[in-house]
């Protein structure tokens, strides 16, 4: 703001005894908010607990509310992926000690309790926005209770816990991801500067990849028929994705690793490094002596499944049987180039 406005503000403040401020500049516009109006709308709760109303609720009471008002969308254990991503899961006793959720370093789904770093956030949000279809209908004690239950589902508080404005700090001190955030000024401050730099090379620039990623043919139709999503005139038409790609008519010879990339296997598997799924080398090693492995694995890749390498399952893969067979054969041979 300019110095002039500053000065003007100071002057008006003196003149109006602090009541009008710049309102005097625009007479007849706006009016004072009443204390009751402010109370009705100013419901926010900050991480330092400013705004947190007094009240309390037990895990046991919370369970009743949860089952009645929350479970239909979020699941009995807060695990449901139906209406929204899971609220509970992925945190450990170790995380509660360190304040950093270890699983966030793994390429896996992220639950609410894995990410939240301030307990006020959940209180504030449930109070203002949940239940989703009837927001702002919970009483203060009900918000405490249902949040206590949610925390109990995540093994952050015991079953006999009572959450209140007095015990919120205790919970904060146990939040699994309380130390998991960094404030990053580069993308916040008006003068923030960038962390990723490119240079504007114009000629014979060095490239680091060939074709690194492309949409697999089977995914052409995932967004409906693209022919219906483009203008009917102009320099181009929409691709009719109801039909096979033009290029598919020509037989193409591809390397196996290209086939793996094309079918998204490489998004989760690499030659000798674990990503979401095990490395090809590890798979080959594991089934070296198993003659029946190939047909078992073909079936597994097709249908998906988990439990062999860890808790994360592999989704079903929609590609031609012959391609799956070729890929599994290649993986079991150690995925040679």
């Amino acid at each position: 703001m300019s110095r002039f406005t500053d000065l003007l503000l100071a002057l008006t403040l003196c003149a109006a005894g602090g009541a009008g401020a710049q309102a005097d500049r625009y007479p007849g516009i706006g009016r004072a908010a009443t204390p009751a109006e402010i109370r009705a709308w100013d419901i926010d709760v900050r991480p330092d607990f400013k705004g947190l109303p007094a009240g309390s609720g037990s895990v046991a009471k919370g369970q009743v509310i949860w089952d009645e008002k929350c479970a239909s969308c979020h699941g009995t254990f807060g695990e449901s992926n139906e209406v929204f991503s899971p609220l509970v899961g992925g945190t450990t006793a170790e995380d509660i000690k360190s304040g950093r959720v270890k699983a966030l370093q793994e390429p896996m789904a992220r639950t609410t309790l894995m990410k939240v770093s301030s307990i006020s956030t959940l209180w504030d949000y449930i109070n203002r926005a949940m239940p989703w279809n009837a927001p702002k209908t919970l009483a203060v004690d009900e918000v405490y209770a249902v949040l206590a239950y949610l925390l109990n589902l995540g093994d952050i508080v015991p079953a006999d816990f009572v959450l209140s404005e007095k015990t919120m700090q205790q919970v904060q001190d146990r939040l699994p991801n309380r130390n998991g955030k960094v404030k990053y000024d580069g993308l916040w401050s008006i003068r923030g500067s960038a962390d990723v730099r490119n240079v504007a090379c114009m000629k014979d620039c060095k490239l680091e990849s060939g074709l690194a990623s492309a949409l697999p043919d089977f995914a052409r139709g995932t967004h409906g028929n693209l022919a219906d999503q483009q203008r009917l005139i102009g320099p181009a038409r929409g691709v009719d994705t109801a039909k096979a790609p033009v290029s598919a008519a020509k037989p193409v010879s591809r390397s196996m690793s290209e086939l793996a990339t094309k079918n998204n296997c490489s998004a989760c598997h690499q030659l000798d490094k674990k990503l979401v799924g095990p490395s090809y080398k590890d798979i080959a090693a594991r089934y070296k002596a198993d003659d029946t492995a190939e047909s078992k694995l073909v079936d597994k890749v097709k249908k998906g499944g988990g439990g062999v390498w860890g808790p994360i399952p592999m989704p079903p893969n929609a590609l031609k049987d012959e391609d799956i067979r070729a890929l599994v054969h290649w993986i079991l041979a150690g995925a040679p180039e």
Partner: protein
Amino acid sequence: MASTSDLDKAGSIRRAPEGFLDPAQIAEVTAGRRGFLRNALLMAGGAAAIASTARAESSGDSNILELPVHSKSLGQPVAATGYGQPSKYERNLQRRESPGLTRVSAASVSFTPLQGTFGIITPNGLHFERHHQGWWDIDPSKHRLMINGLVKNPLVFTMDDLMRLPSVSRMHFIECGANTGMEWGNVAVPTVQYTHGMLSCCEFTGVLLSTLLDMAGFDKKNGKFILAEGADGSSMTRTISMERALDDCMVAYAMNGEMLRPENGYPLRMVAPGIQGVSWVKWLRRIEVGDQPWGTKDEVIHYIDLMPDGRHRQYTSIQECKSVITSPSGGQTLLDKGFYNVTGLAWSGRGKVKRVDVSFDGGRNWQTARLESPIQSKCLTRFNIGWKWDGGPAVLQSRAIDVTGYVQPKINQLRAVRGTRSIYHNNAIQSWKIAESGEVANVQVY
């Protein structure tokens, strides 16, 4: 009078493949088999068409030679539709959801069809949507805006009040922080609508936030942040720095010459130029001044950027310099070899766009594109460049540079610093691969 063979050579019969052509047929046109199109016309039009096509061959285009009904009879009266609608031939350009991205449509996104928009303004009916708890058409006579917190005078404004105050009209882009978020790991969606369509640009009209904060007499010493809060079920809340609030934020009631659309926050929304769309709180009911950030759900659990070490960057807001070619773009098939106006959009949350370069060989060599005016701060800028497609494979890219000298990065440069699981703030250079068939596909090349 030209003979048939002259017409063939000169291309006097427009060879634009009509809507009934499939990619294989377009490919044939692309391959330069001109006689093919006449056959296609014959097949498609059936017996009736044969005569006119035959005539077209001998004397010209039937669209010219045979006067259409609109040239020979009476059209529709004025005000046939009180609020005009696009031509029925434009029905393909719609806001669309990306299947599977979200689980319920009231907490979801619809994407702007950037492949079909021109210039820099997004038509209001095609402005992207992002709602967290459904949208409402709120009675404006009952809507109120409150300003409270660290202010001398907590105030309440009606819409009448706000619309009497000095207004400003400014053009700005709005981009969701998660725009292009599906592509951090690899290519995931087919068209520019889904890769970049959480992006729109309007001329917004409203009151500068600084005007309202001044009226309330905000605490200049301790008032370091403001909270913007919506009136819908989610009561969306976002923290904005006071510095930014005073810089160029506004409380807007209009977009592109009419009141806001309900899906975009009617009757009042925050406009926070340069920063991610979630801060542009819709159905805005309250602004609070405070001395600390609020740590709201969409600042602590979402709109946080996961880094490779498992920590999240919080309060990331700025939408850094970015560009994309909108035509040709993924999911299209080029008509034929020859000349194309390659066109696209560039923008930066840090100010004006200074330059856009375009590559036709996947980033090896670059040429500077023409920027159309106006070029405005924190606003979309349209770029154009001519290209002769020789029918061979090509990879098209655009790279924007903003006033700060920042050069739009490649996806691998972003990944090297931020990993692949951030979801937010992916402003990587986009690649479109053109196959010999003319089909354009989303790819990553760096």
